[in-house]
Each structure stands twice: as structure tokens, then as C-alpha cells.
């Protein structure tokens, strides 16, 4: 195993680097997802496609993290511990420097109203759980232009 891959603990960011050359070309994707096994699966498929991945199980200090790490894309779960991902998204869009950051919103809620709210909050793409890995990967590539 090239890297240690444990589920990120809340409050700790987990950084893993691409295992292969691929579409990602070593660019960074930030994943804010509190379900450890979902997060692990996402990290695996992205790394295999050439992306470096930074993942966190909560949304604390998300804005500072994004400012500091400058990811190429953010995968954001709506229901994070104690926080709504859409509130984080609105705060991101309120910062001019982050206004164009591609953000994929993941949610277990598939209602049209939830989709509308995500898009109004500034999501680049809304994806209902459960999602297909290939679909997520295709979305990441498309939004980053890889």
C-alpha cells in the first residue's frame, strides 16, 4: 500500500496522493464527507485517476482550509456533523476568490426542493446519494477540465 488510508477523524484532515498518473495530474480535490467508508471509496477512485485528495469528516474551518490548500475542486456533503454543507457553500461563494471554485454537492436527500436549494446556494453540480463511482469521476473531470 503506497499510502496510509484511514478514515479521517473529525477535526483532522487526511491527505493522500495520487497512486497513478491520470486525468488528475496531481491536482488537489478536497472532500468534506463524514461517512468514513464513503470518504474512503471516493479517495480511492480519485487517487487512482491521478488526483491528490484531502479529506475531512467535518466542515470546521473549511473556508480557511480551502484558502490555504487551494483545491481544484470541492466535494461537499450536505449533512456534516453539526453543520449544513449548504451554509459552507454559501460562505464560499461569498468570498470573491472562491466564487469560481467547482463544488459538487452530495446529499442523501433527493427531493427537487433540495436540489433547487443546493443550486441556489452555488453548487456547480448536485449529486444524490447513492451515486455511481464512474459518474462522480466523470463530473470531477468535467468540472476541472481534466
Amino acid at each position, binding site marked *: 500500500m503506497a499510502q496510509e488510508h484511514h478514515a479521517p477523524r473529525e477535526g483532522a484532515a487526511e491527505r493522500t496522493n495520487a497512486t497513478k498518473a491520470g486525468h488528475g495530474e496531481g491536482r488537489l480535490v478536497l472532500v468534506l464527507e463524514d461517512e468514513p467508508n*464513503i470518504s474512503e471509496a471516493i479517495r480511492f477512485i480519485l487517487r487512482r485517476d491521478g488526483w491528490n485528495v484531502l479529506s475531512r469528516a467535518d466542515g470546521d474551518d473549511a473556508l480557511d482550509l480551502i484558502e490555504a490548500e487551494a483545491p481544484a475542486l470541492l466535494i461537499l456533503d450536505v449533512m456534516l456533523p453539526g453543520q449544513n454543507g449548504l451554509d459552507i457553500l454559501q460562505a464560499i461563494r461569498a468570498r470573491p476568490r472562491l466564487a469560481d471554485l467547482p463544488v459538487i454537492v452530495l446529499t*442523501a436527500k433527493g427531493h427537487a426542493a433540495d436540489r433547487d436549494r443546493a443550486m441556489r446556494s452555488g453548487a456547480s453540480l448536485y449529486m444524490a446519494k447513492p451515486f455511481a463511482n464512474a459518474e462522480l469521476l466523470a463530473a470531477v473531470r468535467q468540472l476541472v477540465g481534466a
Partner: protein
Amino acid sequence: MPRSQLSGTRIRALRKARNFSQADLARLAGISPSYLNLIEHNRRRAGPSLLTAIAEVLNIPEQTLAEGAEDALLEVLRASAATAEAGIVPELDRLEEFVGRFPGWAGHLGALAERVEAQDRMIERLSERMAHDPNLSAALHEIVSAVTAVQSTAAILNDSGELDPEWSAKFHANVHADSQRLARAAEALVAYLDASGEEAGPAAPQEELESWLARHGNHLAAIEEPDPPDLAELTEGQAELASHAAREMARAWLLQAHADARDLPLAPLLAALRAMLASAAGFRPDALAEVLDVPMDRLFRRLATLPETRDLPRFGLVECDGSGTLTQRHPIDGFALPRFGGACPLWPLYQALATPLRPLSALIEFPGRPAPRFLAFARAEPIRPAGFQAPVVLRASMLLVPATPAILGAVPPSLPQFEVGSNCRICPRLACVARREPSIVAR
């Protein structure tokens, strides 16, 4: 001639047969002669409490004059007319004629209107549950999360031809753990839907209990026996008590009623009540409780569950907890309890909740023509001695009795008077300060 116009005619005929003048009957029934004249000529309708008073004065069974069912039908049709589609204008001014000439069609329309209202409310409740029920939302979130993890991980295992053995073992373990989690979550969801489905049926458990008690006239002979009631025999196989929760509530009710009956047997209660009402002193529950040496809440419950007796009034009772949720419901004619949602916040019941340990009495008037009036007694107190740490848990109760001359006494007390309703949704007092939602009844 519409049936609803008969009551005035009947009153006039019965009064004359007993040689009462219009002025005498009006005075004894507590209304003005001119109002009685309008009623006798079928230009005004007499409500339940007035019919009770007139029946008392004329010394005739109340049923001779009662038209409760027809009044209720008129109310239902009036409320239904208020929700008519745009462009459809029901002839409200000819409603009584309609009910009188076509009682079958009117009854059918009334039943349909009630069914529509009940179904609308049920849909609202279910939608609300789907959208906001935290239990359902958490259960579904858990399932979707587990499914997502299983699907993504299984796809990796399936699609990755040469997966590192260590990764492969890890992902297999993840799939196993998530599938177990999924099974548990699904089981919890099914259990929740099963239990809540029972409660979301046509009747909530409290309504089932209320129907059961109503069928027994709010009184079961078994509670008067010295031995504890046979709970299983009394509550099993009862059509009204369909849910487990309702049967549990019925058993709790029986145990409480039996304890009340042991402490306050029927014979001395009836004797003391009759003596009080015959004395022209009017109904005074505090004096009655003192004579009988029982706590007030026990007296209230006993009065509300008296066997039906022609010479005594019916007593209504409601109890609520500190949240205002009605926990005991014994309605009587003219005192309608809301089937859905909260009750009228102006009830003395809730005023008492705001001033624990301070009993209140008031004259309250419900909407109607003429308006049903009741003498209400309300009180709230902690259900157990309050500790310094524990939260204070309050229970309030309100006893109601029709405000007839015998109840008010020869010298009626000077009491606050409130215009109240049953529930905002069906209350016509549009400008009420306590209104919390629009009324469907437009007048």
C-alpha cells in the same frame, strides 16, 4: 316544513300546554321574552344549553327538544360551503331549507365534507411527517449512507482487476460492515413505520379512547365495583380500541376511574350534588369537594364520568399537560373538542396553566346561535411535589357544565366572561387576539 323549524313550534306548543306565559318561560330560562318569541316563531335557533334550560323549566326530557345532530350537520355544511371552489356559490341563506327538504342528500354531503376534511388533515399530517419527522429523516439518511458506501465500495471491488490484496481485504471488510449497518437501519425503519402507521390511522389513540368512552356514555359500571376492573376483558376485542396504544390508555383510564370511585363512591356524590343544586346555591365544586372531603381533580373526574341521569346536568372535562396537549377529553353537547391540532388558547384551562395553584372560574361562550354558555372551573398543579432540581411537571384540568339557572344559582356569581372557540380552524371569531391560523369558517 324543514325539520329545523320545528323546535320553535314545539317549544311554543309545550309552553302553552303547561300554561306558561312567554315572559315566564323566558325569565326562567334566562333569556329575554323577545328572544323567546323569535325562537318560537322559528326565526332564531335555540342552542343545546338553551334547549336544556327550557326543557328543565317545562319539566320535559331534553331529547324532546334536542336537535344536536341537525345543528352539527348545518355547521358542517356551512364550513364546507366556505371552502367551495371559485365560481361556486352555495346558497347559504337557503341552507336550512335544503337540510329540511332533502335530509338524505344533506346528510350525504355533510358526511362527504367531513371525510374530505379528515383526509386533508391526514395528508397534511403524513406530508409533515415525511418532510419533518426527525426519526424518519434520520432512518432514511442512515440507509442512504450505508447504501452509498456499499455501492461505491462494491463497484471498486468489481471494477478493479488487480487490486492490492490489502486494499481488497479492507474494502471487503467495509462492504460487510456497511451491509450489516444497512440491515439494522432497514429493520429500524420498518419497525418505526409499523408503529407510526398504527398511530397515523384514521384515529389517533386518544380519539379511539374517546369513541370507546362515548359508546359507554363516559361511564363503566365496572369501576364502581369494590374489586379492580378486569382490564383485559374490558379492553380486548373492543371495536374502537384498535391500536395497542389506545388499549393501554383505556386500561390506565379504568385504573384511575376505579381509584377515583373507591375514594368517592357514587351514592354520596349524587346525594351531595342533588342537594347542592336543589338549594338554589348553584353549582360550587369547591364546596362540594369540601363536603365530600376529596381532592378537586378527583371530584372533576368523577363528575365527568357520572352515569347519565335525567335530573342532573352533564359535565365535560379536559385535562392537559404542561405543553398544552389534551390528555383527558370528555366533551359534552355544545363543548366541541378539536379533532386535530391544538384547542382554543383562551380556554380557562390554559389560563390556569399560566397561574398554577390558583383555581379559576369563568363563564365561557362558544360560537353558535344562540351561543352555548358554560360555567368553567379550571386549575393547574404539579403532578408531584416539586423538587429543587427536577423540572416542574404541571397538569391542568377544566370542568364545564352548561350555564343553566340551576347551575348558576339564584344569585349568579360575578364571573369573568370569555368568548372562546374549539380550534382556530373552525372558529368564526376572525378578529380573535389568540388566532394562530386562518379559519375555514367564514360568516
